[in-house]
């Protein structure tokens, strides 16, 4: 029981940090559950997708895969491409997630945009167990998403309100997180460069194919400028 206090301190630090994600995820999970419901997939299916795949924006894309001809290969490849940014999150977290034992697998399984943003920009307080802090952030975010989906699927049976535009919450979330990163002056060159790289990739390669070229461009710019940017 002597570990209880650092662990409780970890939860106490993690929960407030995840409140924005709770709002975003409950709202988006709700939208996802409702959208799935409108396509004929009830709460069991939408919750199963959220719990097993935990794919965030990819799950919205996957709705089109669930309403077209059965093509699991395309679903797999599309998931890899759309979620390729996770690879960069992993690279950024190699150091923080070092030496955490068995829970490392849970942290990696539940790694998403929002958890990455939180654990990469916030440090747990010294009295908190670092490992448990990461675990609390990861599991809370995961739980919000799954709970939001379930609620959306269940409410989708009762409510028939116009959800058009609700998924803008995802965009708003990233705009806000971008602004949060922007607050730190040393992050600005990398942030501005990535906006430019992504915009160029979108213009040249089009909406369907922008992700991979944008990531390659960002990688090239960061590798090229890392000596100056990390000074």
């Amino acid at each position, binding site marked *: 029981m002597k570990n209880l206090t650092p662990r409780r301190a970890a939860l106490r630090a993690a929960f407030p940090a995840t409140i*924005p994600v709770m*709002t975003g995820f409950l*709202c988006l999970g709700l939208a996802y559950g409702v959208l799935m419901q409108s396509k004929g*997939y009830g709460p069991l*299916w939408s919750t199963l*997708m959220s719990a*097993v795949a935990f794919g965030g924006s990819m799950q919205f894309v*996957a709705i089109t895969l669930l*309403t077209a001809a*059965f093509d699991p*290969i395309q679903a*797999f490849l599309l*998931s890899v491409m759309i*979620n390729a*940014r*996770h690879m*960069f*999150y*992993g*690279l*950024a977290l*190699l150091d923080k*997630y*070092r*030496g955490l034992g068995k829970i*490392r697998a849970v942290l*990696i*399984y539940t790694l998403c945009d929002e958890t990455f*943003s939180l654990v990469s920009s916030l440090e747990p307080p010294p009295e908190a167990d670092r490992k448990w802090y990461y675990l609390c952030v990861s599991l809370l975010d995961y739980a919000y998403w799954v709970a939001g989906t379930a609620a959306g699927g269940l409410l989708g049976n009762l409510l028939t309100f*116009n959800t058009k*535009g*609700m998924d803008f*919450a995802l*965009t*708003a979330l*990233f*705009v*806000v*997180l*971008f602004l949060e*990163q922007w607050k*730190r002056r040393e992050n600005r060159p*990398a*942030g501005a*460069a*990535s*906006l430019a*790289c992504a*915009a160029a990739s*979108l213009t040249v390669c089009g*909406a369907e194919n*922008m*992700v991979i070229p*944008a990531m390659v461009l*960002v990688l090239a710019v*960061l*590798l090229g400028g*890392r000596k100056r*940017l*990390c000074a």
Partner: protein
Amino acid sequence: MRLTPMETLGIILAVAAGTQLTRWLPFLLFPESREPPRAVTDLGRLLPAAMMGLLVVYCMKDVAWTAPPHGAPEVLAVSAVVLLHRWRGNVLLSIAGGTALYMLLVQAVFV
């Protein structure tokens, strides 16, 4: 069109497998037992900010700039998020306000 239950399960597992591959790959490539190269450590420092920029543009990718309303709902709603966040600095308020404005714009104004 709706898939059969087995097909639906197949899509769920395919999406899960693809997504998990992207999560595990860096940790498999650079195992704990070895110190990652300096370039990888530097990337780890720079990537958090860079990825936020990429995610913002990614969310805008399906906007039709050349056809009416020329991305007006997106531009207005993102501006609202930025202004709200500059003004109050409240993450929840910025997200909720921007999303509410966007829903209003696409449902009632630019229909």
